[in-house]
């Protein structure tokens, strides 16, 4: 569904993405993991066409991202920071997106109901707390029932109840055969929902494996232990590499 080949992106001298090749299929939930500044958001933004890579191609259902824009109707995106025009009310924001997406007339309003958004419909975006804005972003990304969902730090700032609700929704959508990409630093949130793990470090792809494989190879059950094991392995390899240099 998403094919990424030899994707490279540099900012001045800094390599944000270095020759990344990946292949994602429907029904997968992929966790994009890595330390801060490892290129997760850059990768997501490249898929969305918000950043323009200098090398490599990204294809979504066979269409190259670079010269198409219609493909974005199949993607629901939840940004890391959701900021909206200050004086708009929640109702207006939702209505505006519905009007922009005239191609879609069946709405998935499960999250809107779940988060009880209609109760605060009249509030302006300026007066909302960070968590509520996060909820709006989540609702908007699921609203047009897209085939691909890209969620950048979805659970950061959400209260436990909402966070659980969102996770349930993610599991449900995956069961419907959708492809879901998540980045998060709260690994315990990803535990039950991930099927695959992509680990990036300094713009390089360190590992792309299923959770099952990783559980076997590392002998760990919990995601945070698994990730710790990957990080340690990388660290050891780097260490050895340095030693060889001397």
């Amino acid at each position, binding site marked *: 569904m998403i094919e990424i080949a030899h994707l490279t992106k540099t900012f001045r001298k800094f390599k944000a993405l270095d020759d990344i090749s990946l292949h994602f299929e429907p029904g997968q939930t992929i966790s994009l993991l890595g330390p801060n500044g490892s290129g997760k958001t850059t990768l997501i*933004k490249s898929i969305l066409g918000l950043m323009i890579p200098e090398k490599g191609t990204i294809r979504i259902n066979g269409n190259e991202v670079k010269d198409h*824009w219609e493909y974005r109707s199949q993607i629901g995106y939840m*940004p890391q920071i959701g900021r909206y*025009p200050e004086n708009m009310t929640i109702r*207006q924001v939702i209505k505006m997106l519905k009007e922009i997406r005239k191609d879609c007339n069946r709405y998935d309003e499960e999250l809107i109901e779940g988060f009880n958004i209609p109760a605060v419909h009249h509030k302006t975006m300026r007066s909302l707390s960070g968590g509520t804005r996060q909820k709006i*972003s989540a609702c908007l990304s699921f609203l047009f029932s897209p085939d691909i969902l890209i969620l950048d730090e979805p659970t950061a700032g959400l209260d436990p109840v909402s966070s659980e609700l969102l996770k349930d929704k993610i599991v449900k959508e995956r069961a419907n055969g959708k492809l879901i990409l998540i980045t998060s630093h709260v690994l315990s949130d990803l535990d039950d929902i991930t099927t695959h793990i992509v680990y990036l470090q300094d713009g390089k792809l360190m590992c792309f494996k299923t959770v099952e494989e990783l559980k076997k190879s590392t002998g760990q059950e919990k995601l945070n232990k698994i990730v710790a094991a990957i990080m340690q392995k990388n660290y050891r390899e780097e260490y050895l590499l340095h030693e060889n240099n001397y």
Partner: protein
Amino acid sequence: MKTIIKYVLLDLLKNKTILVYTLILAAITISVSGIGDNASKALLSLLNITLLFVPIISILFSTIYFFNSVEFTELLLAQPIKRKTMLLAEYAGIAIALTIAYLVGVGVPICIFYYNLAAVTLIISGLFLTLIFSALALLIFVLFKDKTKGIGAAIITALFFILLFDGLLLSFIYSFSDYPIEKPLLGLISLNPVDLARILVLLQLDAAVMMGYSGALFKKFMGSAMGSIYTLVCMLCWTIIPLITAARIFKKKDI
């Protein structure tokens, strides 16, 4: 496109800065109009106020608004919309909001007090200044990644056209006063939208000769009609060229 314009407008018309801008313009216009009974004097004062306020408010407000809505722009661009459509729609929303503010603040009172050709040209030049300086703000937004730098650039651009340009022009006239520089001077004036707006109004006010070298030149070389058409065309270029450039650069910008 229409949808985005509509909602940007809905947001902006509730914006406090726009409301205050409208009120201040209205207050100034009404008080200046009330002072004397000489229409052309009042229009001259209003012209000076327009030339000073409109560019700097338009460019600063638009730049800040564009930079503040970066995340929202990002969200909209994740929808199936062309980048160009998105950018121009956002520009149109801001430009329309500022235009309405100017029309309500200056246009309506002027038309009530003195309805003549000079008043209408004053309104037209104010509108063009609004369009031009918000287009320049769009260009600044596209060129800079950092908000602080962008606002700095906006202030410098506005000051350059309002103050600095005339100084440079004067020094140019002084240093080349032995040569026939009238025609090159006309060309140079077209490089400053604020000067163009000034000339457009002065040509209608019969005060062109009073207001210095450039006004007299325009009157002498082109006559009122040709001069007006020329300035209007120049101002139209000043609106369109920054917009096209901004759309081109935005196509390849990382957000």
